[in-house]
């Protein structure tokens, strides 16, 4: 299997006042193509720092990070921007859609920063991405005309549109209710089954059960890295709905 992400003895140190804080203190793991990894940890465990480095928004203090065969340590700011633009799809907790901009234009945004994509191709790919998240009928809606779940699906379409090697999701269900969370996880599982590689940062254990592997961080160290039995989010959703109905009766 192809390695998408290789991390070797990764350190990230912040200087706070006169003290060095080791947010990441020697982390090593590899994510292979087609994996659906959940990265877990409490706040302060270093998972946000790790995500920033995985997303090429931040560079490690020491250690090696290779994404799709490219060593990130050697890149400058502009090269990192291009790398993010071509290799990574971001999904944020608070969706981060541009206000007063249609779903279609929001999805097109990453391709606007890619000279190789023509306006025509940009549109076609955005439409295809919106179809993949089953929002083709809401293309011309503004974010404020969409529900939270729909907004997150637009954000996922935006993460898909540049055909990244990995999708990084940061607490992507954090702002959603249980039912919508299951729907979003169903979508992620659907994408995973089509071969997408996904790293999903969460602090909710039941969300982590929908992935294929869990990496648990504590105080900047990996304390657990194991393959797990993937639960079906679609089944969970169906059970949840049944329970709701039962309660209603």
């Amino acid at each position: 299997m192809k390695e998408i992400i290789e991390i070797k003895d990764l350190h990230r140190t912040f200087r706070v006042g006169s003290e060095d804080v080791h947010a990441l203190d020697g982390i090593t793991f590899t994510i292979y193509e087609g994996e659906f990894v959940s990265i877990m940890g409490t706040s302060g465990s270093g998972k946000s720092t790790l995500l920033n480095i995985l997303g090429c928004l931040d560079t490690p203090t020491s250690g090696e990070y290779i994404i799709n065969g490219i060593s990130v340590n050697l890149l400058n700011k502009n090269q990192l921007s291009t790398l993010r633009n071509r290799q990574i799809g971001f999904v944020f907790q608070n969706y981060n859609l541009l206000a007063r901009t249609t779903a279609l234009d929001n999805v097109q945004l990453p391709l606007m920063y890619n000279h190789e994509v023509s306006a025509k191709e940009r549109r076609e790919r955005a439409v295809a991405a919106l179809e993949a998240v089953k929002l083709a009928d809401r293309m011309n809606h503004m974010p404020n005309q969409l529900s939270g779940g729909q907004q997150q699906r637009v954000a996922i379409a935006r993460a898909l549109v540049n055909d990244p090697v990995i999708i990084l999701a940061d607490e992507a269900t954090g702002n959603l209710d249980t039912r919508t969370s299951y729907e979003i996880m169903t979508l992620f599982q659907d994408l995973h089954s089509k071969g997408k590689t996904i790293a999903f940062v969460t602090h909710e254990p039941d969300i982590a059960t929908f992935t294929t592997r869990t990496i648990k961080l504590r105080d900047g160290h990996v304390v657990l890295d194991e393959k797990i039995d993937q639960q079906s989010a679609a089944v969970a959703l169906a059970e949840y709905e049944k329970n709701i109905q039962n309660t209603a009766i």
Partner: protein
Amino acid sequence: MNILNLVKIAITALLRNKGRSFLTMLGIIIGIASVIMMVSLGRSSTQNVRGEFSSMGSNMIMIMPARQMRGGVNMGNSSSKSLDMKDLKSLENNTKYVAHVSPTVGSSAQLVFGANNHPGSLTGVAPCYIDIRKYEMAEGIMFTEEHLKRYAKVCVIGQTVVENLFTNGEDPVGQTIRCGSVPMKVIGVLASKGGNGMGQDQDDIVLVPYTTIQTRFASANGRTSFNMLFASATREEDSELAATEITYILRSNHGIKEGQEDDFDIRTQEEILTAMSSVTKVLTMLLTAIAAISLIVGGIGIMNIMYVTVTERTKEIGLRMAIGAKSKDVLLQFLSESVILSLIGGLIGIIFGVLLSYVLLSLVLHWPMVISQGAIGISFLVCAATGVFFGWYPAKKAANLDPIVALRYE
């Protein structure tokens, strides 16, 4: 990110805050409109003065006696008797760049015709005077050298004199009017010229052969010197050459040694024009400077709003950077916003400036309508420069944001 996309994004962003964008532009609009108005006003007034001056003859040269000092007392110009017949003859015969020379000898007398009378200023001149001063004959003829020789009692009168003396619509040509005690025959009427640049009525004039004035009018009786000499250069461009030539001849005529001052003054029309328009020029510059200050204030308005915009859209900037926007892309995005803001403001300002200039110049002042294309072009460039200059720092601030911090900004 190509230019078209940049412009599209910038316009979309500006349209999101229509009211704010307009108020920001207002500073630029007022600045540019006032600069254009001031420049138009200045140019128009210069052209106005120039137009009135050229009605006096643009290649005209005035030669007048210099002031004389007698025992430390300034006696004024007219006290001098330095310009005489000899000067006239040598200027007529020995010059290359002087086309015509005419002396002037002034006298005043009450003009009487029938029951009407009018205070007249009689000007004794040579026949070529009307060529120098660009007078046209409306009726009759100008007197000739023959009249000069005979000290003929003939005159040519201006329209103001006609209006005041011939109130019953008589034909002035052929009539005899009394100038003081001297009866004079009107042989011609000058076409109207209106006022000159200094507010004198150029039509309130009685032209008489200068010999007649010198011999027949008491106030100038026995006088052989002239009040002034009027000359015209062969061409407008030769005015300076002609003036040099005249200076040379007059100095040698008057026996002025090297190092001594002239006992006469020479003014070309160009000099007078320059002197007069320098006032307007300074005033125009001053007003334009004030207008330019308002443009700078407008620019600061843009800068202020761009700072607000950058802060307000920190999250958007963070997102754009996370999905692949380079610092340069962000810089250009905000820069193009401020440039578009100031260019649209400038465009509206130019339209307003031209409209207001038109209203002021054509409808209120009745001056020539001069719209300086140069001023419009420069205004446009200044707008673009204002946009870049005042947009640069806010845009740079946006471009330097750390995407991690910007994404978490609340």
